[in-house]
């Protein structure tokens, strides 16, 4: 037996990372702000995004969304009610979106060109673990957490919260009946991702949403 050690030093997700770098370049060239929304199932990503798309559109922004789920196009249909172009990505069992899926769905998207958009939202598969490993070329990764989930979610899923650029607390309209400890939640998020921008929102009452839209507009402006 002749054995030999071969140094590889290769990123395991190199293929995804390369595709994501290509996407990032095309987003940047098109001047579109791309956000990747990640959370557990049931946090309210879709309701939050519905509100965001509708409001941005009403204020004259050009918006679109890609939405990932294992099965069904229910979320795409909900989001399409905003009037924005929405495309469903069904992963058929895969627990996250990857850069290849995004590239494919952008390519064949009739009537939608990146250069014609100000914002592109990607609603990831509801999962707080796997999507954190897959770069989609986004500028901003947003981790969402609802008041019904427990304040220690950031401590339980540190890899996701640590990789996020912004955090959104959803459903604050029901924080009281849920016994939600706001200070503890904010502290936990900050413990895992020091200094992260946190938005406390309700898609039902619109609370905190103006601040969120202001943040988006600011991030969009600095793109160009």
């Amino acid at each position: 037996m002749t054995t030999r050690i071969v140094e590889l030093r290769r990123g395991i997700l190199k293929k995804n990372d390369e595709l994501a770098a290509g996407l990032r370049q095309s987003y940047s060239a098109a001047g579109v702000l791309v956000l990747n929304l990640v959370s557990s199932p049931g946090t309210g990503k879709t309701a939050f995004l519905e509100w965001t798309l509708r409001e941005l559109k009403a204020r004259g922004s050009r918006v679109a969304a890609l939405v990932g789920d294992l099965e069904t196009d229910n979320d795409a249909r909900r989001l399409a009610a905003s009037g924005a172009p929405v495309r469903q990505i069904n992963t058929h069992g895969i627990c996250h979106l990857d850069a290849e899926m995004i590239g494919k769905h952008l390519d064949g998207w009739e009537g939608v060109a990146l250069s014609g958009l100000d914002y592109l939202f990607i609603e990831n598969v509801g999962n707080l673990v796997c999507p954190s490993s897959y770069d989609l070329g986004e500028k901003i990764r947003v981790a969402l957490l609802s008041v019904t989930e427990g304040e220690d979610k950031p401590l339980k899923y540190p890899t996701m919260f640590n990789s996020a650029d912004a955090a959104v607390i959803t459903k604050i309209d029901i924080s009281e009946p849920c016994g939600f400890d706001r200070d503890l939640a904010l502290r936990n998020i900050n413990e895992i991702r020091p200094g992260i921008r946190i938005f406390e929102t309700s898609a039902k009452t619109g609370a905190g949403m103006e601040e969120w839209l202001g943040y988006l507009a600011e991030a969009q402006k600095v793109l160009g």
Partner: protein
Amino acid sequence: MHELSIVTSIVETVTESLTAYPGARVLEVRLRVGALASVVPDSLEFCYGIASEGTPLEGSRLVVNVLPVVVHCERCAQDAELDGVQSFRCPRCGELCGEIRQGRELEIESIEIDEMNKVEEIA
């Protein structure tokens, strides 16, 4: 839960790198996995057996070297290794640290191959 896709990617990458060593059999694959990489070493090993079946990696060992998180503390002006991923505070001064210097790695460090296999096959 995405360990199978990760392992599949490992098998592909290693198989590609074997083109320089035709007929070689893989004995060991060494990974460097950061504590923030969202990967469970046990699940990787479990999936590895399945994904490597029928490839030159079949029967090889998977060695997962887990790297702790290293942050940069601005107050101490030094890097500091963390015990876990429950708090990103400098273990020396308690300052919250946002800058990660190590812990997100997910890479194949090296492979050990048996080249004799090639000779035996030809013979």
